[in-house]
């Protein structure tokens, strides 16, 4: 079995009396899609926030690519190749689609303490940015301000930004949220194509998408990982059926 790319070891995060992440140990191996599912309030976003560095766990460790990153700030984790997309669409609304991706490219092109040269004419940024937009099917929208892109397009833009740094692992926080059926299907196809190149941790409500894409699934309920396994194992797990899938699977 391959060495995991990302792993957590007995991660705990409390908010007051509430244990939002309760001794969670999960891992993501190179080249796999590991899906994290669970009902609302199960602590998925809290867990992701700790992986990205937005929240600091109370105890436990997070390792990425052989390093302990538990105490690294967000930007440093991204530099190591741990990119994310946001649950609520998070793009730079005042900037064009191209500028959004160009900034993402810039983030990985050394430091940005360059004050005089015009970055908006810098082909070393714009070239890869155009390619990134084309990869997610947004080439025609390059000069459109992000604020007026459709919801689905903004989600695509998010993915393009996350991919710009050529990350080793993508954290996708509900990439299909708010998408229509057709858009969702296109996104599923896109992620499946991507799978050969990078590992993903996928948080998603859309069970169809999860069972189509995931190699492994972990079920989170009240902050605890109650089950982990292949889609088939998860479907068959009685605890999961009772606690979460309920009638949906029955």
């Amino acid at each position, binding site marked *: 079995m391959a060495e995991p790319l990302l792993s957590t070891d007995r991660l705990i995060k409390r908010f007051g009396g509430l244990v939002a992440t309760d001794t969670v140990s999960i891992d993501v191996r190179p080249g796999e899609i590991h899906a994290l599912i669970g009902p609302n309030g199960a602590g998925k976003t809290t867990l992701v926030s700790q992986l*990205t560095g937005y929240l600091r766990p109370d105890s436990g460790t997070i390792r990425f690519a052989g390093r302990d990153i538990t105490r690294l700030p967000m930007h440093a984790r*991204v530099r190591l190749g741990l*990119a994310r997309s946001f649950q609520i669409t*998070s793009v730079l609304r005042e900037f064009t689609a191209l*500028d959004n991706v160009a900034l993402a490219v810039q983030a990985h092109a050394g430091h*940005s303490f*360059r004050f005089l*040269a*015009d970055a908006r004419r810098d082909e070393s940024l714009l070239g890869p940015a155009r390619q990134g937009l084309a990869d997610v099917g947004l080439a025609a929208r390059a000069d459109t301000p992000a604020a007026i892109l459709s919801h689905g397009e903004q989600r695509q833009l998010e993915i393009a930004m996350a991919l710009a740094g050529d990350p080793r692992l993508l954290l996708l926080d509900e990439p299909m949220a708010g998408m229509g059926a057709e858009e969702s299907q296109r996104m599923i196809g896109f992620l499946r194509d991507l799978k050969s190149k990078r590992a993903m941790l996928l948080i998603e409500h859309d069970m169809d998408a999860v069972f189509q894409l995931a190699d492994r699934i972990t079920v989170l309920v009240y902050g605890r990982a109650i089950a982990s396994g292949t889609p088939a194992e998860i479907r068959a797990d009685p605890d999961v059926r009772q606690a979460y899938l309920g009638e949906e699977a029955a």
Partner: protein
Amino acid sequence: MTDLVAALRTTRGIVTLVLLVLLAVLPLLTQAFDQRYLLSIGTRVLIWAIAAVSLNLILGYGGMVSFGHAVFFGTGGYAVGILAHHGIASGWIQWPVAIAASALWALVVGALSLRTRGLYFIMITLAFAQLLYYVGVGLEAYGADDGLNIGRSRFAGLIDLRDKASFYWLCLALLCATLWFCSRFANSRFGLVIRGAKSNELRMAALGFPVFRYRLAAFTISGAFGGLSGILMANEGAYISPAMMSWVKSGDLIVIVVLGGMGTLFGPLYGTIAFFLLEESLKPLLDLLRKGWGEYWQIVFGPMLVLIALYARGGIDSLMGRSRG
């Protein structure tokens, strides 16, 4: 070059060109019509415009609402004044020291305040400005409350700052240099990081930018240019006092930047001119209504600020159409 030609075809380009030409020949005009008073107002406009451009770097482009920017009038001015007071009159020493002191103060304040957000940031920048203000008040050796008359900086053989017109043109040249820097900054890699962080800080961090470091650098650069305006202010009146860094002046600077148009290249210049025009025209206008009322011009100006805040966010710059990028 083609950019420049294209820019000159827009309303904004024409207005700006006319304005710059007018500013360039102002000393000749004031001399021809014997209006020395106007030249001194013109000089103050240029100095304030430099300060406003420097505030715009962080406030307009970076969204950092610093309510203590007038403190850099003080750091720049006092560095010059204190050196002059001790007999070091050479501008070649005074000016770099003053700019370095201002940048250093900005670095310290930025390092402490940029960790906070929202109202906390507004108030901590104000408080640090007040801190230096009271230090100025307490400096008995340098005139305390009353301030200090100083000799102007000397640049032997190069320029005589006592000559009003020469000093004016020097201020204009420095304003142009500041604007040039700002125009490059706005679309540079660094500038885009600062602007991106204004738009969505968390996003920028998630892209891998250590936002704090970039903001701190921007704050420091802004302080250095602010210090430049302080140097000029001290030389303009040959005088320094704590009043240079009173919090009302910090408020005025915010007003100017918003009035002119935040995050636009020439907005701070428009804003400064409009601010001084308002002040100089409200007084005679009110006096026309009734003798003596001119003194109370702020009773009209105050509510105007309320209206600007409520209804005119784009500032003067937006009257000339959408700006690029």
